[in-house]
């Protein structure tokens, strides 16, 4: 009787409601109401006048005279009546809503256990979904801070199917030939700068850009100005534009900074302006810009490809129109520069697409995964509501008997789930802040714009939106179910809810769905975990443990002569090798797992020097200690030695892969190969073959690579790499070598700061950061999903047992063994689990393909992963249902029967 006593049940007819009469009976249309009322008035008056002795015709005339302008009254009343009805409907609606809300609040407070579990479950789901959504919004969906980003294109020489960088000569020629870009094409080349003024010296990544760069990107400075075309010329290019990040970090966001001089790379630059914070597109994007100021020699150079070129399409110009112009230029360049541009072609790709890259796919995958978790959470709450709906059958029956319609009951129950979901959204937003902070902290730091992700009004709107959706998902079925129950049966039944139990299709369907969804999540997580293990086990070809690496830049201003560069590097190499505890040291233009490493086209002897015969291969200039330091084996021939001098025979060591491509089936030692510089110096003799290295990360297959001794570095190469790596190997902790290594380099030239100092293990780890991040998150989501599904299964079985205590008691009294009771319950419980698992396997076979680009060495339909996940899931489900099953078996038949 509990819920009925002393309460106004919403939906029951109440004697002092606002207007019970109008609510219950049919209300005539306003026009009829008005006509009826006025004609009644008239008739009554006529009747009265006739009664007083007036003749009927005169009485009617008199009555009409007294009525005045009836037509006007009629119109007035119709208007008033319509307004009144609308007002009363609204009053009634809000009155009922208030009743529903008050009743809901009482219900939720009365069942704190239920409320806490449901709230927490939904808050987890909503919080996680909102956090990931905020990340997706920041990276993928939020508009770019550039003017009309859709018109901004990356223009490049097509390389391996996609537009990449350009040579200066090609940039100049393309820019001159194509009129369909607003403000022409802009060019950018990344560079690093040694900042030195009153504060500590610092190394920052910046970019040299053409004067039109900022206009093409469509961003204006917040302070000062950008470059003029005059400043984009050799000799007058000592101006710098600061990023917002550098401006706030180093200059305290002072507006007085504009016009001041900044010492960089040993020269003075005038600060021209500051760009807005929104132009810091990633947390590790460039921090300052200087004019690129091409020299006439650079403008004529068509073979050095390093410029990032952007262009803004004029309005109403399509990519296809521009493409045909690019094709025409390419054709001309092939003819004009047959050696450098023999196979040249150009293409465009939208800047935004290139910029966001595959993070779009990865983040959307995560959002889908987190959506699955939310669905599982909704399934659990629906289950809880169903169980409660059954327990409340009597209360609902009473309300129905008192005259509440089905719609009214459904509305009341949906109000409950809505209030739950909105409270959960509030709690979820708090959780989301934490989740998002964790996501940002764990994510690789080159995810564009992720650091801009916030729990902001958009996230809030999203959270409220999914709360509304989830309240319907988890509340509708239980509400419909509860409102349909026959009140008489429910009342007779003593409120125990006769339709409860596992034979109940709806409840079974919820378990099926939860299990299927968790399986989908876990298969995804499992595939990524297997990929991560495979990556960990991949032989990178070198031995990263015990190796410390750092970079050093030789500024073009103070290091002009190749001889001086060589000498300085040789001394650094020597100093590094002399550090106590260092077993070997080397200088290399490119270590592994990081930036650096240009490619060159190689022509093996016996083949014509045409583009079709070029083997693109990664160049490393090294000192002889390289192989010992990185632990790369020389599989054939010899290492470089001090005899390989600048004036000696040009020698080369090739990687096994290059040897196989250049001289298939032959011994490469002693063979000649042409590369890197014109004339006889281009002819190198192969003296050794080194093992392959996965230089670009464990997931990327080894490419052809070759090595040149430092003294024989082509002079032109110093234009390509001014930044080199110093690597040292120790038997102890490589991190302990940071200080001594710094000291050693400073002893050689105290203006050379080391930067990007990291152990090889760290470099390896950060090359896997993105993969690790996704694996971690998906695993976490899979675990949450599994836990939620397990609680869901447990809840349903526990409820089933509690509803059947009597029946089980009777079975035991009639001689059923405890074992058979456990089997009965488990059998009931595991049927929907098995169906759900089957559905889940089918779904994961279809869906795991979206992961294929993130998988390494694992098929998206890997049977081992699916089997492992199945075993985990069925195991967890068995445990979750075994607990209540054992409780059932322990039922004391006498007490169970007395309980009635």
């Amino acid at each position, binding site marked *: 009787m509990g819920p009925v006593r002393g309460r106004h049940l919403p939906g029951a007819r109440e004697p002092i409601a606002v207007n019970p009469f109008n609510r219950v009976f049919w209300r005539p249309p306003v026009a009829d109401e008005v006509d009826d*009322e006025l004609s009644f008035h008239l008739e009554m008056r006529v009747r009265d006048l006739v009664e007083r002795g007036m003749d009927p015709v005169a009485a009617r005339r008199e009555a009409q005279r007294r009525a005045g*302008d009836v037509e006007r009254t009629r119109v007035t009343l119709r208007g008033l009546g319509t307004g009144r009805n609308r007002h009363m409907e609204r009053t009634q609606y809000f009155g009922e809503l208030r009743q529903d809300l008050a009743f809901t609040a009482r219900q939720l407070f009365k069942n704190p256990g239920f409320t806490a579990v449901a709230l927490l479950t939904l808050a987890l789901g909503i919080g996680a979904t909102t956090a990931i959504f905020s990340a997706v919004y920041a990276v993928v969906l939020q508009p770019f801070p550039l003017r009309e980003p859709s018109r901004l294109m990356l223009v490049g020489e097509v390389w391996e199917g996609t537009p990449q960088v350009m040579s200066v000569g090609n940039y100049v020629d393309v820019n001159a030939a194509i009129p369909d870009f607003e403000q022409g094409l802009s060019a950018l080349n990344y560079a690093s700068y040694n900042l030195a003024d009153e504060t500590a010296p610092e190394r920052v990544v910046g970019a040299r850009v053409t004067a039109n760069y900022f206009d093409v990107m469509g961003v204006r400075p917040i302070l000062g100005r950008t470059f003029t075309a005059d400043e984009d010329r050799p000799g007058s290019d000592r101006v710098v534009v600061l990023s917002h990040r550098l401006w706030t970090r180093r200059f305290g966001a002072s507006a007085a900074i504009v016009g001041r001089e900044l010492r960089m790379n040993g020269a003075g630059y005038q600060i021209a302006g500051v760009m807005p914070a929104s132009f810091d597109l990633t947390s590790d994007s460039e921090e300052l810009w200087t004019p690129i100021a091409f020299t006439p020699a650079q403008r004529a150079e068509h073979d050095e490809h390093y410029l990032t070129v952007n262009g803004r399409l004029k309005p109403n110009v399509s990519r296809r129109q521009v493409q045909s112009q690019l094709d025409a230029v390419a054709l001309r360049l092939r003819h004009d520069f047959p050696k450098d541009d023999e196979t040249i072609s150009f293409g465009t790709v939208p800047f935004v697409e290139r910029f966001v890259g595959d993070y779009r796919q990865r983040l959307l995958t995560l959002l889908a995964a987190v959506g699955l978790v939310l669905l599982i959470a909704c399934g659990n709450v629906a289950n809880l509501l169903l169980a409660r709906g059954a327990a409340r059958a009597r209360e609902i029956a009473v309300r129905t008997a008192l005259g509440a319609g089905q719609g009214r009951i459904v509305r009341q129950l949906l109000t409950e789930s809505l209030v739950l979901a909105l409270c959960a959204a509030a709690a979820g937003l708090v959780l989301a802040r934490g989740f998002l902070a964790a996501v940002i902290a764990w994510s690789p730091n080159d995810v564009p714009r992720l650091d801009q992700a916030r729990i902001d009004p958009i996230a809030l709107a999203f959270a409220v939106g999914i709360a509304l959706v989830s309240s319907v998902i988890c509340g509708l079925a239980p509400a419909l179910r509860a409102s349909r129950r026959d009140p008489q049966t429910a009342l007779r039944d003593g409120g125990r809810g006769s339709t409860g139990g596992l034979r109940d299709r709806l409840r079974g369907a919820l378990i099926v769905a939860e299990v299927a969804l968790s399986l989908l999540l876990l298969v995804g997580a499992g595939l990524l975990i297997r990929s991560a293990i495979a990556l960990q086990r991949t032989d990178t070809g070198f031995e990263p443990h015990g190796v410390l690496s750092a970079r050093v830049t030789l500024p073009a201003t103070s290091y002009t002569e190749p001889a001086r560069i060589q000498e300085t590097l040789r001394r650094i190499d020597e100093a590094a090798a002399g550090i106590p505890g260092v077993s070997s040291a080397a200088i290399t233009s490119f270590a592994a797992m990081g930036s650096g490493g240009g490619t060159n086209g190689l022509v093996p002897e016996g083949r014509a020097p045409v583009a079709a015969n070029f083997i693109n291969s990664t160049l490393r200039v090294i000192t002889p200690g390289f192989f010992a330091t990185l632990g790369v084996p020389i599989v054939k021939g010899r290492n470089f030695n001090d005899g390989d001098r600048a004036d000696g025979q040009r020698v080369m060591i090739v990687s096994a892969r290059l040897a196989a491509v250049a001289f298939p089936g032959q011994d490469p030692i002693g063979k000649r190969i042409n590369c890197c510089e014109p004339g006889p110096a281009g002819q190198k003799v192969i003296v050794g073959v080194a093992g392959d290295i996965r230089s670009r990360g464990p997931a990327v297959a080894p490419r052809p690579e070759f090595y040149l001794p430092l003294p024989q570095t082509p002079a032109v190469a110093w234009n390509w790499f001014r930044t080199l790596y110093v690597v040292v190997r120790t038997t102890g902790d490589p991190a302990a070598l940071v200080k001594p290594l710094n000291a050693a380099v400073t002893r050689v030239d105290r203006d050379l700061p080391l930067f990007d100092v990291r152990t090889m293990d760290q470099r390896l780890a950060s090359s896997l950061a993105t993969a690790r991040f996704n694996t971690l998150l998906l695993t976490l989501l899979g675990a949450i999903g599994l836990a939620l599904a397990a609680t869901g299964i447990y809840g349903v079985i526990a409820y089933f047992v509690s509803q059947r205590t009597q029946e089980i008691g009777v079975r035991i009294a009639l001689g059923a063994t405890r074992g058979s009771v456990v089997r009965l319950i488990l059998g009931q419980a595991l049927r929907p689990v098995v169906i759900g698992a089957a559905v889940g396997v089918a779904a994961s076979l279809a869906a795991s393909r979206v992961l294929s680009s993130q998988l390494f060495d694992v098929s998206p339909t890997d049977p081992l992963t699916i089997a492992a996940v199945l075993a985990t899931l069925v195991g967890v489900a068995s445990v979750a249902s075994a607990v209540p099953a054992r409780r059932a078996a322990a039922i004391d038949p006498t007490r169970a029967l007395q309980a009635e």
Partner: protein
Amino acid sequence: MADNRQSMTNTSSELLHGTLDTLILKTLTAGRRHGYAIAGAIEDATDGVVEIEEGSLYPALYRMERKGWIEAEWGVSELGRRAKFYRLTPKGRRQLVAQSAEWARFAAAISRVLVNP
């Protein structure tokens, strides 16, 4: 005579502006009534001095219904015809008390001016 009555009606309706509601509410304290009976009761109580025409009676009733002072229901009149009855709500009763007090204060003030020279 007819002219006289006409002018009387006009005067009353001006005078009644704002107090018509109070009169209607007062009339309904005796129980539910339809519109014609309300008008009749007011006329009887004022010995025909105050006469109310449909154009002011019904709009007042509709407005008060919206405000929740009175409730309407369809029923059967004393002569067996379908008619719309109005009755006082608790809110209307409170309104009547407040307005009567206001009216008493107002009337006392006016009569002080008119009676004392």
